[in-house]
């Protein structure tokens, strides 16, 4: 897959990991004492390691996005430089085409 599509996939996967992280946190959160009138909540259910893994995934995905950005083959030419190069290549192509024709 080309690098821009990879970058787009990476952005989407960062978004997916983000809402998975928040969903897991909200689903597995232990109860908390809201008001001082009521007694302490019972001790929490066995805590899993999943939020830690998911947040590590999130950081890894962000780092991979940075790595992909660094790998972008972006020349500083800008649009005009590219268009000039295209015109140059077109002329060269034309010359060689004529020579081929002669041969």
């Amino acid at each position, binding site marked *: 897959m080309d690098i821009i599509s990879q*970058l787009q996939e990476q952005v989407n996967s960062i978004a997916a990991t983000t809402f998975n992280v928040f969903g897991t*946190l909200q689903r597995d959160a232990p109860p908390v004492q809201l008001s001082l009138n009521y007694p302490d909540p019972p001790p929490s259910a066995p805590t899993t390691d999943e939020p830690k893994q998911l947040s590590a995934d999130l950081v890894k995905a962000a780092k991979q996005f940075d790595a992909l*950005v660094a790998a*972008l083959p972006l020349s500083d030419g800008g649009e005009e430089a*590219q268009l000039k190069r295209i015109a140059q290549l077109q002329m*060269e*192509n034309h010359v*060689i085409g004529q020579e081929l024709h002669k041969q």
Partner: protein
Amino acid sequence: MRVNHILSFFLAPCRRRIISEARNQSPSIFDHPRFPPLKRRMATATYPPPPPYYRLYKDYSENPSSAPEPPPPIEGTYVCFGGNYTTEDVLPSLEEQGVPQLYPKDSNVDYKKELRSLNRELQLHILELADVLVGRPSQYAKRIGDISSIFKNLHHLLNSLRPHQARATLIHIMELQIQQRKQAVEDIKRRREEAQRLLKDAFVTLDGQ
């Protein structure tokens, strides 16, 4: 919904037949399918007929110009199945979509730097959202709006890289083509010289005899 209807129509009689056989009873009125029989039902779902102007092309094989020309390509906007489409492939700018633009609006924007800074902003906002959810849970909406606008900016930046990529691909293809043509020229020169050499050798051998 229609698929469910058709599926249940197919499954229902089998189920009823199995049940009545299991109970060892004679077939009852409950075995009649609930829906109208297959033939009547499918008459409403046949393919549409061909468009009526096929008659204009009766003599096409003898006289190709007696039939009308195909319609010219559409320009501008057109409506297809209730949706508006344009024929120009232009990436709409962020302001038109109502999303605030977070990177500087310049003609030569440094893509790598902006992508990286947007990524860091995104991470910070995610952490901020987590904090807000812990402390002030009712204020999540604004943070989520910020995060979604960062995502939209990211995608917009990436999409605006596509024309650059297209031009780079074009340059690459043209370089390849020039190289191939040079190769072909060289090949032809070589072959022609070799053919001339062979002919000369043949003449020499014939004269020598």
